[in-house]
């Protein structure tokens, strides 16, 4: 199981001091936080992508490239990369480059963004959000998997014999998660390809997340990538901790009450009971987080939103210390308990590389040329089992 941080990259005035960080300070804070993620023993740092103030991360691979040089172990990811308005050719090249820079410590989460005007700014139509996400990703996959691509679609200039460069490290494309709050189309897309599904989780009630994840799992099995329990699920989360539960509530309340997303709306108590937000002691965070498994099943990745709503860097780093020292070690131990051996870990570059090597070895009689569609995920997430993930592939036949 992987644990990490995802950041929106907002510049928000600290409501307790009135201080507003500069763009430079905020960007430097994000880089500091990412390095702290590695220092305290977490596994993933993911940045958002936005193209309007008050957000700073418009160029995620620039940030992640710096972090790659300053860290050795953590996975560099996104939450999310805008598959709708960014050119899939540029996404293919940016993230393949980042793979080489970071020796493969890269994956990405695709999303459609939360700012309507982004579409017209990049010459797109927001009403085509879902078709853009589907078509652009279909092209992105081919750019990473085929050396020369002939392509023609609805939304982009055709390509003839195009080769994106550099090629993915070791011939292994980065693992992809598809992020969605409420679009079944995106859960369907993730399941169709056997990719990961990342549920934002934090702004909606648990019952909603449970239904979305359940749907993705069922469709993952339908498309022949493995059993529903073997689907690759990531969740967002949001916590604020203090040794003493009451201190946490007192300290976080002004940030909650003024937060851009939910400020001046429900009380912190109501929002805590209706969403996964947890404000309290490390033990309360542990208990709540372990409870996620009750409604989404054994899952692969837990990311927390930590640096937002104007929380100062010092506070965020203290929160990360608590996560690394008191929370995540317990979660690793507890999540491992009763976890079936057949439930895979999230694919990494190394697991995908090994799967690729295994797949290019002489194939048993039951696997044929048509299984390429599933190889990257299904083989990487679990040991090859006769028939199951390989032979059951329906998607290879009825897809593109």
């Amino acid at each position: 199981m992987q644990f990490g941080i995802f950041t929106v990259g907002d510049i928000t005035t600290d409501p307790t001091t009135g201080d507003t960080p500069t763009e430079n300070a905020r960007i430097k804070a994000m880089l500091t936080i990412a390095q702290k993620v590695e220092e305290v023993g977490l596994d993933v740092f993911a940045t958002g992508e936005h193209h309007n103030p008050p957000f700073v991360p418009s160029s995620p691979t620039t940030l992640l490239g710096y972090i790659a040089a300053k860290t050795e172990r953590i996975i560099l990811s996104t939450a999310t990369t805008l598959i709708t308005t960014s050119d899939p050719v540029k996404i293919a090249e940016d993230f393949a480059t980042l793979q080489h820079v970071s020796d493969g410590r890269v994956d990405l989460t695709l999303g459609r963004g939360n700012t309507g005007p982004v579409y017209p700014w990049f010459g797109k139509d927001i009403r085509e959000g879902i078709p853009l996400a589907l078509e652009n990703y279909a092209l992105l996959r081919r750019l990473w998997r085929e050396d020369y691509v002939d392509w023609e679609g609805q939304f982009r200039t055709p390509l003839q014999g195009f080769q994106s460069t550099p090629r993915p490290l070791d011939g292994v494309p980065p693992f992809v998660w598809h992020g969605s709050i409420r679009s079944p189309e995106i859960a369907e897309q993730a399941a169709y390809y056997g990719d990961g599904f990342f549920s934002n989780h934090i702004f909606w009630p648990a019952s909603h997340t449970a239904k979305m994840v359940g749907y993705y799992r069922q469709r993952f099995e339908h498309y022949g990538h493995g059993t529903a329990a073997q689907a690759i699920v990531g969740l967002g989360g949001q916590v604020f901790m203090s040794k003493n539960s009451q201190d946490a509530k007192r300290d976080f309340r002004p940030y909650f009450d003024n937060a851009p997303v939910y400020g001046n709306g429900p009380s912190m108590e109501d929002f805590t009971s209706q969403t996964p937000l947890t404000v309290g002691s490390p033990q309360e965070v542990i208990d709540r987080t372990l409870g996620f498994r009750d409604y989404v099943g054994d899952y692969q990745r837990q990311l927390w939103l930590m640096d937002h709503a104007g929380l100062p860097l010092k506070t965020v780093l203290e929160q990360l210390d608590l996560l690394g020292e008191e929370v995540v070690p317990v979660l690793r131990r507890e999540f491992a308990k009763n976890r079936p051996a057949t439930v895979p870990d999230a694919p990494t570059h190394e697991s995908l590389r090994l799967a690729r090597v295994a797949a290019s070895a002489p194939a048993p009689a039951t696997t044929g040329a048509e299984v390429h569609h599933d190889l990257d995920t299904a083989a990487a997430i679990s040991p090859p089992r006769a028939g199951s993930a390989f032979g059951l592939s329906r998607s290879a036949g009825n897809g593109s």
Partner: protein
Amino acid sequence: MTAPKGKQRTLAVVSAGLSQPSSTRLLADKLAAATVARLVDENIETRVVTYELRDYAQDVMNNMLTGFASPRLETMIDAVTAADGLIAVTPIFTTSYSGLFKSFFDVIDNRSLTDQPVLIGATAGTARHSLALDFALRPMFTYLHAVVVPTSVFAASEDWGSGDARVATLPARIERAAGELAALVARSDRSARVLDPFELPAGFNPAGLGPSR
């Protein structure tokens, strides 16, 4: 046509009245009672669920700010949108529906009232506000693809007295509107439908539109 014995329908009533007692709620109740009576004539048993938006005012505003409904508001929205008919009544404030009334219909999914039979009503101090029904409420429900019955019912304060001899009395307007709504509710299968929240659009292809290779 007489319905088979044991036929059942549900009727949702949403009142945006603020005071207690409220003439808006009174009008809503009268419209509901008249509709139920018409359905009884057709051997249809009607379950009425009535909601005062005042009781959900905080939840509606929180939904507007956070993007999701609290559990109690979600339960209420599900009941309203799954009903075979809806009676929606608002006081007229400053030439139009009340902000609370509009906010409620702003936070529900804009596809969830499609095809729903709706009877609209409004209350105000004087009859000079009565056209708000036709310039504000009716277009709103038309936008939501609801089926609004031709007769809408406006009750000014004076209507609760003897009424003006030159126009149809309030009880007569209520009866006519209830008859129109009951006819649509009787034919509705809305409350018996099973909704699939994960229904994909027709022709959906997860790989996109099928790029020509």
